[in-house]
């Protein structure tokens, strides 16, 4: 019964979505306030119905209802309850339902928090989001219904892929989807503005916090995916340039460009049409990502069993959304205008360069991801583009961008002076070079690439320091206190500094991992030791242990440094009887300055095993840097000038309630 209710709720949601997609839009065109007023309640109802359907699917999973095909294919009675919930998005149908839940959730959030927007603008925005949910609801109902029943239900399910039975599965997909789908808000704002023809700086101010919030989720989602791959896949890499990773990275690059270009549009009114184009592209790339992942054209960890009908549907929808929005752009953008003028040494120019570099990087990733698919589709042979391609292209494109991170924030809007910039930044440049050489000398590793990497990280820190000092230094007759001046810095500015510092931390981590990591696959018998970077690993053998739905072979390795015990690592090899598959569970001792990473390879004759023993210096800084970027985004999105709006409207409603 419950699955039928869920299925029914989805059909109802489709009805509501169709109404949302059409009525408020027509209302905005004809100036009918009553038609436009439908938008907000419809967005709420649509979210409630989809959430209800999602709840039904969770109930089917938790209650082990194997008469539902999707549950039977992705769950099992022996699966722990929290993984049964996570198994909801462990396959194609459920993850599309999650995607839909996020989409309607974002629409609901826009309806809830954007009351201060003029009615026609809000009506158009929600209508555009309605069009998107119509597309995805149709996709779900016509090609991938998660509530399909089996005529002869099996006694037990086929179980969730053991690779996915991990806490990462509980958080990574929802986070990533929040980010992916969150870009639909910026997209809808852009399309609505194109339709309405009112693209001004207030438009940019409304769009900014939404874009930043989506970007935060995307950043965290990607970082979590990377961390998950690092500890779960068992070979200690943190980024593989896998097509699916690229599919999430491309929207991130464009969204990053969008955040910066929105800043120019809000502050200076320039870059208007470019910003709109970026908003369209960012969401188009998340749709493309969905298509790549869900259509099964890729062979990767994320590809599910496929049905060509699905790929075709998403492709058609992709073409419709991108085609329609770009056509609209071509038609309306000339009216938008270019906005305010600026000198060619100015913060605008630096931000433009930032955008160009980010887009070039995105283009390079796109080429490397799509070209093999294209060749294959044309029957011109199978090729693959390896990580070396992405590394060689990416680093030279990012280096000037990193340089600009230092210069941009110090340059004035509209017109800046190069000599003045040089005066303010020369010490930063010198300090960065000295610090990087010193660091490399101290750790006894003098490579050109790693010195450059470190110099980039220190350059960001030093330039930020100059910026901060200038802001804190009293420069008038009124000498206010340091604390007071620190408080004067707008929160958004602090957010930018934190995010940029996050990039420095990230680069620092990447450089030290790439240049300093040691990976060793060794054959170890009981009592054998191996030494890596000063750490001595002693193998104490493997014993068999039962788990909730698997049996584990657990190894024990004692780690000492200069005779003193550091830690004991217990990597596992898990065998899942239901799927008959084996999983490697690495043991990691995470530390501020290094990770000790051990995983079991294969058993050899006797009690010996092949063991992976890795020491990865500063690897946690990579994810730490990503979290700092996300936190910086959080600070920027909660800046007072966005909150003031909300508080004002809330005050008004409160007043009404009291009255």
């Amino acid at each position, binding site marked *: 019964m419950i699955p039928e209710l869920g299925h029914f709720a989805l059909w109802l949601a489709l009805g509501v979505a169709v109404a949302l997609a059409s009525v408020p839009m027509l209302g905005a065109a004809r100036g009918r306030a009553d038609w436009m007023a439908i938008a907000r309640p419809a967005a709420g109802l649509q979210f409630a119905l989809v959430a209800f359907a999602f709840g039904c699917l969770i109930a089917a999973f938790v209650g082990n209802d194997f008469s539902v095909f999707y549950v039977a294919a992705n769950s099992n009675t022996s699966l722990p309850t929290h993984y049964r919930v996570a198994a909801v998005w462990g396959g194609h149908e459920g993850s599309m339902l999650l995607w839909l839940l996020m989409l309607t959730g974002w629409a609901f959030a826009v309806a809830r928090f954007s009351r201060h927007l003029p009615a026609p603008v809000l009506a158009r925005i929600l209508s555009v989001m309605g069009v998107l949910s119509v597309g995805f609801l149709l996709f779900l109902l016509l090609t991938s219904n998660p509530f399909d029943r089996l005529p002869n239900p099996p006694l037990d399910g086929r179980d969730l892929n053991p690779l996915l039975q991990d806490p990462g599965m509980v958080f990574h997909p929802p986070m990533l989807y929040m980010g992916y789908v969150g870009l639909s808000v910026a997209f809808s704002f852009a399309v609505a503005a194109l339709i309405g023809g009112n693209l001004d700086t207030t438009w940019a101010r409304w769009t900014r916090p939404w874009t930043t919030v989506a970007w935060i989720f995307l950043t965290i989602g990607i970082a979590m995916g990377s961390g998950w791959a690092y500890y779960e896949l068992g070979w200690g890499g943190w980024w593989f340039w896998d097509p699916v990773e690229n599919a999430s990275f491309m929207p991130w690059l464009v969204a990053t460009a969008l955040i910066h270009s929105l800043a120019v549009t809000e502050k200076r009114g320039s870059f208007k049409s470019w910003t709109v184009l970026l908003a369209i592209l960012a969401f188009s790339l998340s749709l493309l990502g969905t298509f790549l992942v869900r259509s099964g054209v890729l062979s990767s960890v994320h590809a599910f069993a496929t049905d060509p009908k699905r790929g075709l549907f998403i492709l058609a929808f992709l073409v419709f959304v991108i085609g329609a929005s770009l056509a609209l752009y071509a038609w309306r953008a000339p009216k938008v205008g270019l906005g305010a003028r600026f*000198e*060619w040494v100015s913060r605008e120019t630096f931000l433009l360069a930032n955008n160009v*570099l980010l887009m070039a990087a995105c283009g390079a990733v796109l080429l490397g991801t799509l070209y093999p698919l294209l060749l294959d589709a044309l029957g011109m042979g199978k090729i693959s583009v390896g990580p070396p391609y992405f590394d*060689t292209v990416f680093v030279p*494109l990012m280096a000037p961008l990193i340089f600009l991170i230092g210069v941009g924030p110090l340059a004035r809007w509209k017109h800046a002076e190069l000599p003045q910039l040089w005066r303010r930044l020369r010490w930063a440049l010198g300090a960065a070079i000295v610090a990087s050489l010193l660091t490399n000398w101290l750790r006894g590793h003098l490579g050109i690439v790693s010195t450059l990497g470190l110099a980039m990280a220190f350059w960001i820190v030093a330039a930020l320091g100059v910026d901060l000092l200038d802001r804190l230094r009293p420069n008038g007759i009124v000498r206010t206190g340091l604390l007071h001046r620190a408080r004067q810095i707008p929160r958004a500015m602090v957010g930018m500094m934190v995010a940029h510092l996050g990039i420095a931390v990230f680069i620092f981590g990447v450089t030290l991992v790439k240049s300093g990591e040691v990976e060793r696959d060794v054959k170890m018998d009981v009592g054998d030791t191996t030494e890596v970077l000063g750490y001595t690993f002693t193998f104490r053998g493997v014993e068999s242990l039962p788990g909730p739905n698997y049996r584990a072979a657990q190894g024990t390795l004692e780690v000492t440094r200069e005779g003193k015990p550091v830690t004991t690592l217990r990597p596992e090899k898990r065998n899942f009887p239901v799927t008959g598959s084996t999983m490697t569970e690495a043991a990691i001792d995470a530390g501020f300055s290094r990770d000790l990473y051990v995983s079991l390879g*294969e058993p050899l004759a006797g009690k010996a095993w092949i063991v992976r023993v890795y020491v990865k210096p500063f690897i946690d800084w990579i994810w730490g840097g990503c979290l700092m970027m996300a936190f910086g985004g959080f600070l920027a999105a909660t800046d007072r000038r966005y909150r003031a709006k909300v508080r004002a409207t809330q005050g008004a409603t409160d007043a009404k309630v009291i009255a």
Partner: protein
Amino acid sequence: MKPRHKRLAIAGGIVCAVGIAVALVLNAFQSNLVFFYSPTQVAEHEAPAGRSFRLGGLVESGTVKRDGVHVSFIVTDTSKSVPVRYEGILPDLFKEGKGVVAQGQLQDGVFVAREVLAKHDENYMPPEAAEALKRAQQGKLANTMAKEGAR
């Protein structure tokens, strides 16, 4: 500087940046394309010598030999086969009789793999491996394999 000159300068800057990016990309692209070959193609000397490529097919049953960290096995597409040497830990889902894709170079008739690619579950056959089988058997055998894999 006049506005027109400024715009020209910016446009020129963008063109330069894009040009450099394109040059970088194409150069890196050319040297990092990895082509795929089936054991039959390798046997017919179609695969390049001294350049890395991907080899796909089935791991022939009973051919996996391990000596410490050194492994050797034979990859077949059921009509021709290629001996493979690898050093290190094989992925969890590497099994005799199952599909595999390896990346590496030919050295004196032996494929020295730098990387053996993991499949992610039991039911999954790497498309490259499936392709190689299909080409070798004109579909017939590959179908039964795919079915076996699906079961």
